[in-house]
């Protein structure tokens, strides 16, 4: 009994530790006072100020564009690659998978700097394009890692059965293969999009010409100290990430259920 | 001093409202080989786990040599368990696995060595001390698990379907080995299985369970020959189970025929279950048979043929060493003492 109470207290303490800062941040985004200590009344003015801040709004725009476009391209290349990797012989497959793990394992700062060296070396001006290219690059491995298990699970006979029943390869791919791997593809895309929004270190080294993402803007504002507009922005971002996560989780649990049912009927 | 080693008294266990076992009463004698037999979900494993101390019963008592051990944790009970999937410690070798219990009791290393040598000899794994348990075959892992339990010289060894993962041939061999070990060591074995043949081969006593209730307990012969209800009859060996009506003592009506039997004491015109073993039905000439029918199918089963005979509104299963061709008209006969009459199971 005593140990049970002790355990509960401990875990409660831990969750408070994890969530208190986030919750305080959200609360203060509604605080009228600029200094954090005192609560002087409820207000939406920081949200208003945030939406009127040109710098925040342009970086939001860039974050979203790079996130969306980057995730799409990464998903496209990554999904194709997953099929190719799946049909490789063991040796090239291991080599390709190691290549895939390299950017995942390498420290972000090293990855970021090496991209920067490349872009400067090929005389590409740091800015929107370099940002996009680097985001695509660090996202593809995550897409592959989420699509590959699905491709491995594919029943080869199903595709052949479709052809046998008179489907053209393109039709069979669209109607038979694609629905099977779709959950993995969508999760891969969401993962890529989230990681792209979340990234700071790699973006930090590969941006220029006045192009800035939200993370970079937050960093440069936070370095100068507290800014209530960041509180408002953070709160909004928490809510977005949270809803994205809930969606991903629901999809994943559905996907797991689907796999389970498949196994049971075997 | 109680005459029984272990006594389960009115043990019940429910998981969130669903009852796994109900009012189990069971007495186990010293040096007995007792088998709990039943389909999966019948409560046999739950009963075993309660004896081992891994489950806490909702109500009832467990007496061990007369004292209640219900509140003792597993590590204080003088029983050891052989788990279904062996549960060998993957980070230890064969020697360390078997020595685990002895080391905890702080037995001297020299004596541990001695005991392990002896037990490895018993399970025929001498020379395997340093092997990793993952490198062993299923049968060898099984024997390590048994050695690990036996080396502690428990009063009672609990075995939870220990042979379930082995192939048929290995299983047959291990059954005989286990029985031999039990007789040699003089330890009480409580064995759980869903395999009736295994139960019949090894046990001194069989306890048949279903739906959390003990159906019948007794020697293998009496369970096979005198099943108390249709469930036991069906579960132990194969059976023809037919609806019948008890007309009066020694007279039962099956499939429209009045037949002599050896049972009495039922109500007049009471509906009953009638059990006839397939090997007790004899195929005779059409003129001599009680039932007349046609052979529908013949399957060769190795030692005997299994034939399905359609007679009137009934299909009978018959085991015989002599084959009759499909389509042949035959008569069926059964001796009165081979007809087992059972009360209908009460509707739940």
């Amino acid at each position: 009994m005593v140990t049970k109470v002790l355990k509960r207290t401990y875990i409660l303490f831990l969750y408070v530790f994890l969530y208190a800062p986030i919750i305080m941040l959200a609360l203060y985004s509604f605080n009228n006072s600029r200094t954090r200590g005192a609560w002087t009344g409820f207000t939406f003015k920081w949200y208003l100020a945030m939406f009127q801040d040109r710098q925040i709004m342009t970086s939001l725009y860039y974050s979203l564009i790079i996130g969306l476009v980057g995730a799409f391209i990464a998903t496209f290349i990554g999904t194709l690659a997953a099929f190719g990797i799946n049909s490789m012989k063991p040796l090239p497959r291991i080599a390709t998978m190691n290549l895939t793990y390299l950017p995942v394992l390498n420290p972000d700062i090293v990855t970021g700097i090496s991209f920067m060296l490349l872009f400067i070396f090929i005389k590409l001006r740091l800015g929107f394009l370099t940002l996009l290219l680097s985001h695509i690059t660090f996202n593809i491995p995550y897409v592959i890692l989420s699509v590959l298990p699905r491709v491995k699970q594919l029943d080869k006979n199903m595709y052949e059965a479709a052809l046998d029943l008179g489907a053209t390869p393109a039709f069979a791919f669209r109607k038979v293969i694609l629905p099977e791997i779709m959950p993995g593809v969508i999760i891969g895309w969401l993962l890529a999009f989230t990681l792209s929004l979340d990234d700071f270190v790699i973006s930090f080294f590969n941006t220029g010409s006045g192009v800035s993402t939200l993370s970079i803007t937050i960093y440069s504002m936070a370095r100068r100290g507290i800014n209530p507009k960041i509180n408002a922005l953070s709160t909004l971002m928490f809510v977005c990430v949270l809803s994205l996560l809930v969606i991903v989780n629901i999809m994943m649990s559905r996907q797991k259920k689907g796999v389970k049912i498949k196994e049971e009927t075997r | 001093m109680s005459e029984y080693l272990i006594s389960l008294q009115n043990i019940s266990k429910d998981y969130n409202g669903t009852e796994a076992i109900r009012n189990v009463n069971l007495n186990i004698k010293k040096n007995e080989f007792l088998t709990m037999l039943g389909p999966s979900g019948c409560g046999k494993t739950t009963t075993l786990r309660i004896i081992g101390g891994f489950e806490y019963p909702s109500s009832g008592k467990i007496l061990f040599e007369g004292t209640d051990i219900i509140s003792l944790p597993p590590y204080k009970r003088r029983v050891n368990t052989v788990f279904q999937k062996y549960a060998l410690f993957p980070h230890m070798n064969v020697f360390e696995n078997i020595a685990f219990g002895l080391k905890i009791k702080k037995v001297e290393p020299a004596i541990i060595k001695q005991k392990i040598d002896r037990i490895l000899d018993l399970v025929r794994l001498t020379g395997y001390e340093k092997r990793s348990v993952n490198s062993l075959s299923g049968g060898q892992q099984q024997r390590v698990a048994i050695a690990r339990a036996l080396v502690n010289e428990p009063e009672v060894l609990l075995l939870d379907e220990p042979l379930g993962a082995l192939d048929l041939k290995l299983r047959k061999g291990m059954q005989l080995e286990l029985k031999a070990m039990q007789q040699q060591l003089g330890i009480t074995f409580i064995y759980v299985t869903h395999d009736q043949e295994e139960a019949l081969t090894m046990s001194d006593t069989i306890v048949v369970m279903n739906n959390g209730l003990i159906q019948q307990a007794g020697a293998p012969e009496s369970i096979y020959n005198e099943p108390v209800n249709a469930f036991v009859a069906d579960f132990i060996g194969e059976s023809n189970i037919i609806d019948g009506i008890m007309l009066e003592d020694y007279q039962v009506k099956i499939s429209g025929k009045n037949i002599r039997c050896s049972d009495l004491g039922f109500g007049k015109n009471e509906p009953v279950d009638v059990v006839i073993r397939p090997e007790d039905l004899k195929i005779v000439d059409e003129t001599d048979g009680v039932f007349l029918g046609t052979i529908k199918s013949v399957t060769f089963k190795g030692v005997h043929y299994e034939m399905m005979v359609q007679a009137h509104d009934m299909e009978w299963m018959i085991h015989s060493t002599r084959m009759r061709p499909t389509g042949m008209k035959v008569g069926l006969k059964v001796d009165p003492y081979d007809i087992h009459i059972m009360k209908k199971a009460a509707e739940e």
Partner: protein
Amino acid sequence: MKKTWTAYPYILWMIIFTIVPLGLLLYFSFTVTSSTGTIFSLDNFRRFNQPIYLKVLFRSLKLAGVSTILCFALGYPAAMFLAGRDLKHRNTMVLLMVLPMWVNFLLRTYAWLTLLERKGLINTILGAIGLPSLSLLYNDFAVFLGMVYNFLPFMVLPIYSILSKIDRNLIEAAEDLGANPFLVFLKITFPLSIPGIISGITMVFMPAVTTFVISRLLGGGQYTLIGNLIEQQFLTVGDWNFGSAISTVMMAIILIGMGFASRYETEQEGSGLW
């Protein structure tokens, strides 16, 4: 269905954007440029071998090491609790542990600023009960706090995932053979959870060594870790050769560490992030 070719664009992409850049990094770290041209040289590494830079390296390693130990000390009991048998809302509890990992780590770090600063919540409370205000920000304490806060879930998760996979029968078998709960932990649970501990340590230590954001925001502008050193070389000083050399050293430390750790985690493939 042989269509290996669909992986070719990807492989080409990765060669251009991963292999070539890393090659450039190595090239810069092993060369020096002067007015006479670019020559092969180990000068950059020799320069790094000076006390001022080694001090930064050791400081980073020490800080990351202590943070890892703190995360382990706090995280192992938490993982055990989450893997416990009698837990009712396990999935929710685990999700709650994972959630902060998905919040932008800049924001997570920034959140502490608002609590720790001179006029922040903690000092306001201290003032309200009549205690003198503390200087909580821009010191080792703040950096440790930021590290533990950011990386704790990365320690809890792999340990939890290993602990929850331990076959319940093994625990029961140990109890059956006479081990009390303490001995069960010492002889069974803990040894079996070592792969999880290793991957937890990897996932905390590696990013902790290379961070430059936590140290900049919570440690202040003067607080230099190896990550900050690299950033300075590239963005302020402009000495790419030296910056590349430091990056190479760091990459070597990390990849060797990873290789070492991966020998222990043969079973759990990529369970880390989830």
